[in-house]
């Protein structure tokens, strides 16, 4: 490898000599603009891209939600057809979970974890880029089903021979985010593989599968990063709580996603190749799908919630002027939630006829999981207690998070009682419950995080009055939309029904809920618009505007690409706060300076490899559509994937040395540190 040219330290990557590997492949280190963003391996840029895509899909999912609510605003409405409604709620759920909350959490993981542990990048920078692009293509495949659906509705596909032979013409998935077999699967014997749904389900299967690969790759990366890349002195019990929750979330993903991966492969084999895993007419077990799905699906809830809990656990101490109450208990309860999360999946299946003994066992375990969750709320309360609470947009949103999450937790306790749940299951009561947890909880937590760290990410401060108005609209609209659903559920309105008759007593509160949803939608849009504006045009601010406690606030804003000019040595928890106000200063290692910091080279290969998923993702549903030769698209995709990984392997380690300002100017704090 002709890699030597890079070993001379440079002040900027644009000064690098062009580098070619023996295969003639170029590492695009010296690029700017589009190429730079497409080939970046910088965890901060990847985090920003994750965040941008996540916010975009939040809006997509939000539009789907508003269409759902518009349909339900009055009885016997026909704003959308039954099938379109089913597609909307399927895509709303899938989008919000897999393309909204998870990638937005991933944005925080990417941006913050290396900064919080005092590292200069994640353990595997190219794998990180691979996760990002795999997510992007998986999300695109899933949403491309809408493009096919609209093309079908517009009649553009009518001319194709294969289109005339389709028994079902739902191109966007209409099987629910849970995709229960056999509705999503097959029936019939002798490998007939007759179906209840069209190719939308095939889009859904391959889309979720690809997204799972992205999540798994990212999780391995973050576990390795957190375990191995911590700065000196950053022991596990000194980790910021957000990093702890990231670690637990990553472990949950690694343990939970294999279950859904297996289930999706089985379902795909059922549909595409006439296997009979879930086919009841050939002896398959539809209930197996539910077990596999929920042993993924329940930990998934904690995958969504724990990062938001971590964010709130960072914000509350900052604005209470006081250390987190019960740090070890918060960390431990997070771990207990993660562990117990794998022991409660069947509470989603209380009505499937499990029998009294398993029902009782899962009811008790579900009650048990309320204990560590309650402990977190008590400790947040303890953090505020005796502090000096400063009201800022992130703090207001965090307090909103605690309130809404608490309400969601309370209705969760109601579900844990299986007999009560048999009335609530699949009713609007459940919708109210999990939106209080996932929207009132997670979305408020993530929004709090955005407002909290945006000054660090872009060096610009979001407009506070606008942030308050948006937060107020979100909280008000949210309660107006989902509060009444508790009643609707108890009044017997089942979920996933595209319409209802007048006379059931559901008219008033559905109307109120829809109005609330519009307010909520406007609030979220305003909040995101404020943030987007801030990213480009916001007022510049200091590097530590909030009086932060953890290492990332010790860095300039925006953070330089090497993060730490000199690697920090940490002596305590809340290291930066102690450094500012306490006795224990942050020390710095004597590295960087003229000798430079070793930076990873950028690469095209993660992008190339994940493009393979784009081909495979389109090929599988097109095969199901009966498009001629579509199987070759899948094989091409797998070929591109393998080629990309192979070239990735042989393009060489790369890397270059970047000079940092540390040695050239101000005295290094390392010498002044009390050691």
């Amino acid at each position, binding site marked *: 490898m002709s890699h030597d040219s890079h070993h001379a330290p440079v002040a900027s990557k644009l000064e690098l000599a062009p580098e070619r590997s023996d295969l003639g492949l170029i590492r695009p280190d010296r690029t700017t603009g589009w190429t730079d963003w497409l080939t970046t391996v910088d965890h901060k840029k990847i985090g920003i891209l994750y965040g941008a895509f996540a916010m975009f899909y939040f809006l997509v999912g939000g539009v789907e939600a508003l269409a759902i609510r518009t349909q339900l605003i009055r009885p016997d409405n026909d704003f959308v*057809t*039954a*099938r379109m409604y*089913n597609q909307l709620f399927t895509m709303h759920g899938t989008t919000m979970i897999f393309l909204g909350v998870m990638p937005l959490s991933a944005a925080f993981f990417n941006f913050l974890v290396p900064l919080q542990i005092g590292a200069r990048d994640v353990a595997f920078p190219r794998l990180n880029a691979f996760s990002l692009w795999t997510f992007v293509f998986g999300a695109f495949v899933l949403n491309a089903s809408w493009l096919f659906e609209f093309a079908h509705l517009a009649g553009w596909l009518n001319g194709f021979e294969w289109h005339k032979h389709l028994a079902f013409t739902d191109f966007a998935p209409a099987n629910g985010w849970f995709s229960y077999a*056999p*509705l999503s699967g097959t029936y019939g014997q002798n490998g007939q593989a007759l179906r209840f*749904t069209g190719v939308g389900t095939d889009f859904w299967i391959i889309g979720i599968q690809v997204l799972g690969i992205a999540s798994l790759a990212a999780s391995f990366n973050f576990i390795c990063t957190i375990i191995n890349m911590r700065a000196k002195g950053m022991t596990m019990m000194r980790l910021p709580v957000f990093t702890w929750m990231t670690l637990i979330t990553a472990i949950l993903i690694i343990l939970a996603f294999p279950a859904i991966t297996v289930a999706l492969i089985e379902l795909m084999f059922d549909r595409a190749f006439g296997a009979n895993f879930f086919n*009841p007419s050939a002896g398959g077990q*539809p*209930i197996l799908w539910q077990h596999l799905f929920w042993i993924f699906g329940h930990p998934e809830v904690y995958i969504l919630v724990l990062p938001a809990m971590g964010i709130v656990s960072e914000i509350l101490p900052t604005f209470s*002027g*006081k*250390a987190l109450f*019960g740090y070890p208990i918060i960390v431990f309860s997070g771990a207990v939630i993660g562990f117990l999360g794998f022991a409660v999946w069947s509470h989603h299946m209380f*009505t499937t006829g499990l*029998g*009294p003994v398993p*029902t009782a066992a899962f*009811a008790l375990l579900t009650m048990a999981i309320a*204990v560590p969750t*309650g402990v977190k*709320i008590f400790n947040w309360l303890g953090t*505020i*207690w005796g*502090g*000096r*609470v400063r*009201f800022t947009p992130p703090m*207001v949103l965090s*307090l*909103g998070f605690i*309130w809404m999450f*608490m*309400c969601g937790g*309370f*209705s969760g*306790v109601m579900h844990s*009682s299986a*007999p*009560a*749940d048999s*009335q*609530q*299951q*699949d009713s609007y009561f459940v919708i109210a419950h999990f939106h209080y947890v996932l929207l009132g909880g997670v979305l408020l937590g993530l929004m709090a995080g955005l407002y909290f760290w945006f000054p660090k990410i872009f060096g610009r401060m979001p407009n506070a009055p606008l942030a*308050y108005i948006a*937060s107020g609209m979100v909280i008000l609209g949210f*309660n107006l939309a989902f*509060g009444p659903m*508790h009643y609707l559920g*108890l*009044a*017997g309105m*089942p979920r996933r*029904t*595209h319409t209802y*008759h007048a*006379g*059931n007593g559901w008219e008033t509160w559905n109307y109120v809920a829809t109005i609330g949803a519009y307010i909520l939608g406007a609030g979220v849009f305003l909040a995101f618009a404020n943030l987007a504006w801030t990213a480009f045009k916001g007022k510049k601010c200091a590097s530590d505007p909030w009086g932060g406690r953890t290492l990332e606030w010790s860095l300039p804003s925006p953070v330089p690409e090497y993060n730490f000019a000199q690697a920090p040595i940490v002596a305590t928890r809340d290291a930066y706060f102690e450094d500012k*106000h306490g006795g224990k200063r942050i020390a710095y290692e004597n590295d960087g300076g003229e000798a430079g910091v070793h930076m990873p080279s950028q690469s095209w290969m993660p992008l190339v490899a994940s493009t393979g998923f784009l081909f495979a993702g389109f090929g599988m549903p097109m095969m199901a559509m009966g498009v001629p030769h579509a199987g070759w698209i899948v094989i091409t995709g797998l070929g591109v994937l393998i080629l990309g990984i192979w070239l990735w392997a042989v393009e060489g380690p790369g890397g270059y040395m970047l000079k940092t300002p540390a040695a050239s100017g101000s005295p290094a704090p390392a010498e002044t540190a009390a050691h």
Partner: protein
Amino acid sequence: MFSRFFSRVGLLAAPFLALVMAGCSKADMNVRQSTLDPKGPVAKMQYDVFMDTVWLVVVLFILVGGLLVYAVIKFRARPGDEDAPRIEEGHGNPLVEIGLITASIGALVIIAIPTLSAIWYDDDVPAESIPTSKLSAWYPRLEGAKENYAKVVEEQVLEIDVIGKQWWFRFEYPQLGLTNDAKRSVPNEFVIPKGKAVHINLRSEDVIHSFWIPKIAGKVDLVPGRKNHMWIQGDEVGHYYGQCAEFCGDSHAYMLFRVEVVEPAEFAKWVQRQKADSLPVVAGSKAETGKALFAAKTCMMCHNINGNPQAAGVFAPDLTHVASRKSLAGAWLDNRDPKAQLAKEQETLNTEQSVEIDRDVLKANLKKWIGSSGVATGADGKPTKDVKPGNRMHFYQAFSVSGLNPTFAPLIDAAENALTEAQAAAAKALVDAKGKSPAELATIKKAGDEKVVAATAALKKAREILTPEELDCLAEYLLTLK
């Protein structure tokens, strides 16, 4: 200026809760599918456990929420804090933590105990509800049992098989001989005697459905390839509403059903009626034409009508007593006068009260339902709207039994071909006519267009399987099936 306002943001929840409480009138509590108005022991037990959790949660909400509001207000930052000494960095208090964890566990035990007892109670008919052995000594095949069913029901647990299909429910009473095999099944509206425990077997023939009568019992799923069970009991006479609660495809929202709780003596009469055949139609009436159409348009391939030997299908709902049911099309279409029904509910403050069937509404519903999926045209000349998208009522084109359906399937194919040919011919004529004068071109184009229009009209006619008159006759026939 906003911070003061939003420091109270948490307080929003309190007036909201008060608003909800104030809105809880009796009318809100006993709506048709309310779970808060139990009318049977199973739903009652579930309601009681639910209320246990509600009280626990209300207490916790006031405690924790109150503390949170207090803390946020009490410990808010005040001017001058900047100069105050820094707060001591503490990291928690083990005694407080252990105390709170213990208290949480204690609170959960309070709801765990009623939960456990209710799980077993709800699972199957409790022993005290079965006066004698559950072994079906009086199974209908046994001597004398058939004639004695009233006494038998009196003494024993009634069993009902519920079979879910996309998108309707079929009910069978195996002990009473009301089964699909005996061509006596009961679709969508079933009847149970008041105060009697009923054991229900749940099965599905396609996808997963869920059986839910909120006022009588919480839901249990119908899973294909499995047999689930539950038990129900209605303690008050009335007309109850149920709905499929598991997403089961396009028309999931239309998969409703009803249950009528009646006095035991009434129940015996109902069973007798179910076993009776339909009455013969009056010769020369519209109904007689309708009966012939029922065969000619292949309705009888799927539907069974006792008393009409031609109609012996097993796939679709039994229509022997279709005109005696208060609902149609998976209970989506209500055969009662909606205004009268609403008035009765408001007058009695009881949604289980029901008015009788309105013949006009029923006939309109029949026409709407049979004519759906575009097989007939409405008053505006357009194909009638789908009542239940994806339903299988008009799958009869799949039956190509020679001699049975000589009318439409091949005709539609032929008409489709004719239209395609007319379009192709018109296009070809235009291409061939290249270079001719504009006047000639216009004539050729007009001729081609006319042919296409004619072919389109022919196709429309072929697709219109039922003319308005035929639809009317068919509805008249079904109206005689009481």
